[in-house]
């Protein structure tokens, strides 16, 4: 299964590098969103909490605009059946999850780098904690959105359905992620972030396990 998953990941990566479908759209989305935020907040003094919230809003909507591509692209190109004939459902899920994980990690690093660059008031006091939250948040986001993308790929209104379905599923992740990021930005105390880190870890385990169990039913008609 691992070899098959790796082959699917490599296929998706090669396809993305060749078509640049998701990457270009995502980068443009991030640049435009940050530009709007920057222009609308000229001269405003924002609290670290508000800055952290805005960072997660950008990360959430950027993920919503690109992470469904892994399955939607297969459905739009008509290659879902080809993949069903080539690999087991669990290998497909794992391969797509790996690709989405890479995409969301690269995306979130890019967003944070650009955010730090354009928002003078945003400073990270505890970088270790901050990047751990980003890593856990990205893992959770990739895991949850991969199974949701598989579900919505077969729907006609997939564009609007993806964020609508994702929001309630991602709510615990967003709340814990925002809270832990805020601690890393303003206080810098590991101990106070511990409950949020535990929640993120538990969320990751539960969502990934449920996704693996459910994927077979989603993938076959």
């Amino acid at each position, binding site marked *: 299964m691992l070899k098959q998953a790796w082959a699917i990941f490599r296929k998706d990566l090669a396809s993305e590098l060749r078509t640049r479908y998701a990457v270009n759209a995502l980068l443009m989305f991030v640049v435009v969103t940050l530009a709007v935020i920057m222009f609308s907040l000229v001269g405003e003094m924002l609290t670290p909490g508000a800055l952290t919230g805005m960072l997660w809003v950008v990360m959430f909507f950027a993920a919503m605009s690109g992470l469904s591509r892994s399955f939607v692209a297969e459905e739009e190109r008509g290659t879902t059946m080809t993949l069903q004939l080539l690999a087991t*459902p669990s290998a497909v899920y794992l391969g797509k999850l790996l690709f989405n994980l890479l995409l969301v990690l690269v995306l979130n690093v890019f967003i944070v780098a650009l955010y730090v660059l354009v928002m003078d008031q945003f400073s990270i006091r505890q970088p270790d904690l901050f990047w751990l939250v980003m890593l856990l948040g990205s893992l959770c986001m990739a895991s949850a959105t991969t199974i949701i993308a598989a579900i919505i790929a077969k729907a006609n209104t997939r564009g609007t359905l993806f964020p609508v379905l994702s929001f309630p599923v991602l709510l615990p992740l967003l709340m814990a992620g925002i809270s832990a990021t805020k601690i890393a930005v303003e206080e810098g105390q590991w101990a106070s972030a511990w409950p949020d880190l535990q929640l993120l870890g538990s969320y990751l385990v539960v969502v990934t396990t449920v996704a693996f169990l459910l994927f077979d039913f989603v993938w076959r008609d």
Partner: protein
Amino acid sequence: MHVRADALVKKFNRKPVLAGVSFEVQPGQVFGIVGRNGSGKSTLLRIVGALLSPSSGSITHTLDGRGIEAEHLHRHIGYAAPYLTLYEEFNARENLQLYASLRGMPLGARDCDALLDGVGLPLDRRDPIRSYSSGMKQRMKLLFAVMHRPPLLLLDEPTSNLDSEGIAAVYRLVEEGRERGAVIIATNDAEDIRRCDATISVEAAC
């Protein structure tokens, strides 16, 4: 490969497409599914390939006396159909290498050449298969179906879009498939039907 279907029913949004279809395919047999357009031939073939679940009824696949679970059936079947789409952003060799790596089979450059040559595809083309003609794409689909030498070959209108040379290649692959296991063809083509050992006629259920 032995295939047995019992009282297969398929409904889409409560609309029946197949109503109680039963048949049996023996090892070494070329079996034809015939019927008018819209009668459910392709739906039945998808159910046989475990790409679609029946609304009711059952289908079993047996290889060397052992039943095969639906999750692992893809390793034992080859499937080619007009509605099957390959990865058109990749060239023919990249597609073959992808299928080989997903199926866990080694595939060198010479193997690629032999496969492409076997169905009459050019060896020197490096452009994505989206630029191929419909006949060349059909040959690629046939390669996709047979390159792992499956014991059950499922072909939906296999001779569509092909010239006489391509059609001859299809019948050669069908005979090879018969020797390996069994072949099921969904078709309305008279020559395809003539090559079948047995056929079942499916009628539109609605």
